[in-house]
């Protein structure tokens, strides 16, 4: 179970190709479900969720047969499709959603990023007791915002097995973002395995799905290229620390097939446009565990919205979209086909779609980038340079040194590292994207249009550390899993600063329910308003929250298996 030498990519061998690429006609086998929304055939390569635009909705959660890889499986679905129907709302409307559970277990729907009364938030055990088998729960709330959001189950692993889709809220008085075409591009990861089994495997062998581990062969190559001492030095710290520099994703394409709007790469979801049109793509990462690096070779993407909030337009080549984040971009394609290429952060696979002026056209699919091993900065933050060199007191990136206060409970078996001098900059695109020759979006590029929700500064600070032990596959906050935690209290109406320090080597997309997270720049200026904040390894980020939403809320890492492992808190606003 222990791996030593960095190595090169292992490309999938031939029998695995269909598995990785998926079936061209893969997806929910519509027509076999008793509750079918009329939908177009998947084989056409234009699979998409049906769109429901109304103020009243009937959604039915049930099991449906699917086949993404050649192996028939049962999925959990809403109205029989994966993704579930896209819901189109209008800002200011009151929406009613009757959700019926036809599973044999409790189910739920959470409206991700939507501001609403806490009883409508859809988290079993916090907002309500969940929707029991055979029951219907009626959600009703006023839509107070506009933009791109999504919804998903908050019960067990139902999100992994298919219960997710998009919410598009049209602004009450016209959309300032002009576009002639508008497509949701929802990325996700599918496994034929039972997610409970996946979780159990990770608990037994946390690098189970990593087939890019350091090997002896790579070591020998390094020795011949760089000499013995250099090759040894490269590995010394990692091996001493029992950390794996190739630990980029817990779950890889070994089991995952990556989907675009429910279509496999072979299925090739296609969005049609007329040359000259401005096309709006609403990227939503509904993966359970996968960060996607999205680009459209030949097209610049102008980012106009992040997490449903309009941002000052910024034009980039590539976007890393964290789990649960959304980015709206405008592209202006010419009279040719383009590939939407979304490779997984660990470079084991990709989701793919096509933008084309006519059906049936496709463009070349890029090869996967070579995976980059984690660097010392991913382990040590700002002070990675020469941790043992004895030089002190140098700041990083002008951000100044920050004081880190670890929790008492971080000194024990639930953590495998602590970062004492985290990096505070927001302009690092992250592992695998640094200096790749493309203009990659970072949080430093995102500026929400308009002022923060509350111009006043924070009255107090709450510092939480993102913690885990990869070897044990335990994930926690402040070294405490949810089962050992107590709620975090926000005083009703207060403005507070949250400080996250990532004491792990993985990027965690942290989602606070019910209230916005207003990210600050390293020097304390308002940066961007988000519902999900990705915190990079050994990074410290701060954001301000206006605690205006009374009630009980969830706050967690949106990597599904991290959440289930206990990287989760309840927030009480009172």
């Amino acid at each position: 179970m222990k791996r030593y030498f960095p190595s090169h990519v292992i490309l999938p061998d031939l029998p695995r190709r269909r598995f990785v690429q998926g079936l061209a006609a893969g997806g929910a086998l519509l027509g076999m479900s008793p509750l079918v929304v009329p939908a177009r055939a998947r084989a056409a390569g234009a699979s998409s969720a049906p769109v429901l635009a109304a103020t009243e909705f009937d959604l039915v959660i049930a099991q449906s047969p699917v086949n993404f890889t050649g192996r028939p499986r049962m999925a959990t679905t809403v109205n029989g499709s994966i993704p579930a129907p896209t819901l189109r709302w209008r800002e200011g409307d009151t929406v009613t959603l009757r959700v019926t559970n036809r599973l044999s277990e409790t189910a739920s729907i959470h409206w991700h990023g939507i501001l609403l009364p806490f009883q409508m938030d859809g988290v079993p055990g916090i907002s309500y007791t969940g929707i029991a088998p055979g029951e219907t729960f009626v959600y009703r709330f006023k839509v107070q915002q506009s933009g791109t959001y999504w919804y998903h189950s908050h019960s067990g692993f139902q999100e992994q097995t298919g219960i997710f889709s998009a919410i598009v809220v049209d602004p009450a008085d016209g959309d300032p973002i002009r576009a002639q075409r508008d497509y949701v591009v929802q990325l996700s990861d599918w496994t034929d395995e039972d997610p409970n089994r996946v979780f159990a495997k990770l608990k037994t062998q946390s690098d189970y799905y990593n087939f890019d581990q350091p090997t002896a062969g790579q070591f020998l190559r390094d020795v011949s290229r760089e000499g013995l001492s250099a090759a040894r030095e490269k590995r010394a710290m990692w091996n001493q620390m029992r950390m794996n520099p190739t630990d980029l994703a817990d779950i890889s394409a070994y089991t995952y097939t990556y989907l675009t709007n429910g279509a496999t790469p072979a299925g090739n979801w296609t969005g049609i446009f007329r040359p000259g049109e401005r096309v709006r793509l609403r990227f939503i990462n509904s993966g359970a565990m996968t960060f996607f690096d999205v680009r459209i070779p030949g097209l610049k993407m102008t980012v106009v919205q992040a997490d449903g909030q309009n941002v000052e337009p910024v034009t980039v080549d590539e976007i890393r979209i964290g789990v649960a984040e959304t980015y709206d971009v405008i592209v202006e394609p010419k009279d040719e086909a383009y590939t939407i290429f979304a490779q997984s952060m660990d470079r084991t696979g990709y989701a793919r779609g096509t933008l084309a002026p006519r059906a049936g056209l496709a463009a070349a699919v890029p090869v996967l980038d070579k995976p980059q091993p984690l660097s010392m900065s991913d382990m040590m933050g700002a002070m990675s340079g020469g941790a043992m060199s004895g030089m002190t007191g140098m700041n990083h990136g002008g951000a100044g040194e920050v004081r880190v206060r670890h929790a008492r409970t971080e000194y024990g078996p639930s953590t495998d590292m602590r970062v004492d001098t985290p990096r505070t900059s927001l302009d690092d695109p992250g592992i695998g994207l640094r200096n790749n020759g493309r203009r990659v979006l970072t949080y430093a590029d995102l500026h929400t249009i308009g002022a923060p929700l509350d111009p006043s500064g924070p009255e107090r600070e709450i510092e939480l550390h993102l913690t885990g032990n990869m070897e044990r596959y335990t994930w926690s906050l402040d070294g405490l899993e949810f089962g050992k935690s107590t709620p975090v209290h926000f005083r009703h109406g207060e403005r507070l600063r949250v400080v996250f320090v990532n004491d792990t080597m993985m990027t965690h997309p942290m989602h606070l329910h019910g209230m916005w997270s207003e990210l600050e720049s390293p020097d304390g200026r308002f940066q961007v308003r988000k519902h999900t904040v990705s915190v990079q390894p050994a990074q410290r980020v701060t954001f301000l929250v206006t605690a205006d939403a009374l009630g009980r809320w969830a706050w967690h890492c949106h990597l599904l298996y991290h959440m289930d492992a206990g990287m989760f808190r309840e927030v009480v606003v009172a």
Partner: protein
Amino acid sequence: MSAVRRSRMENVEIMKYRTKIFAAALLLIGATSAWSQGPMQGMEHSGMDHGRPTAATMSQPDTPKQPAPDPDVRDPHAYSDGYDFGAIPRPRMGDEHSRGALLVERLERGFADEGNSTAYDLQAWYGRDYDRAVLKAEGERAAGKLQDARTELLWGRAVASFWDAQLGLRHDSGVGPDRSWLAFGIQGLAPYWFELEATGYLGQEGRSALRVAASYELLVTQKLILQPHVEANLYGKSDPERELGSGLSTLTAGLRLRYELKREFAPYAGVEWSGKFGDTADFARVAGAPTRETRVVAGVRFWF
């Protein structure tokens, strides 16, 4: 020359030989990983791209240079201000569920001049992340009967990032009378990825024992894995009925090359050397059994 005298003379030889064995065993594990123990001051060449030279910045909870916890560490419950969970039963997540696994590290047939044998070595656990029941079993069957079996049932509790403390019972069976022991030890992952187990035992009639095992996994490729393994058994006093002498009793060193068809299932082949030492070797000689044995082994490693 009396038997005792001969034995003493041989002991001198054995002492020399024992030193060689230990050196060889250490080399076996050490050689495969010597490259990994590069000098710490070399870290600045480690491929970081945001590096700035400055102070030590990261600590690991159980490394020797671990700093004492900051005196003003935070209380993780301070943010609750006394609030507890609400009337709705709170979620129960994976950290509060028990699960288990069975790892059969070795299930093999051994081939040697002295005769063939079948051996097993397994660990199973059931429980939660930091507290679990652990079953360890190892044994060998040859010449149509169970020669030697060690079965331990332990409570394992995580005590540091990479270490579990274990407490429980051990039962030995096979040739000779059964023995029962109180067992206490540690199991975990040492720096540079050595898997270590060290367990002390206290038995009846003042018996005591120590068992130490170490192994390492060297990835030749992603699926072809070479595993050196060393195990030593020591006893506090002689147990003639089980033909065990005091001091170092047995030492085993194996090298197995497995191919993981799946992570959970890997056939392997290898070689295992085992030796008996001190009075244990004498007992073997008296019984006409070999004190050194080299076996070719073939078997499967699997878990679920």
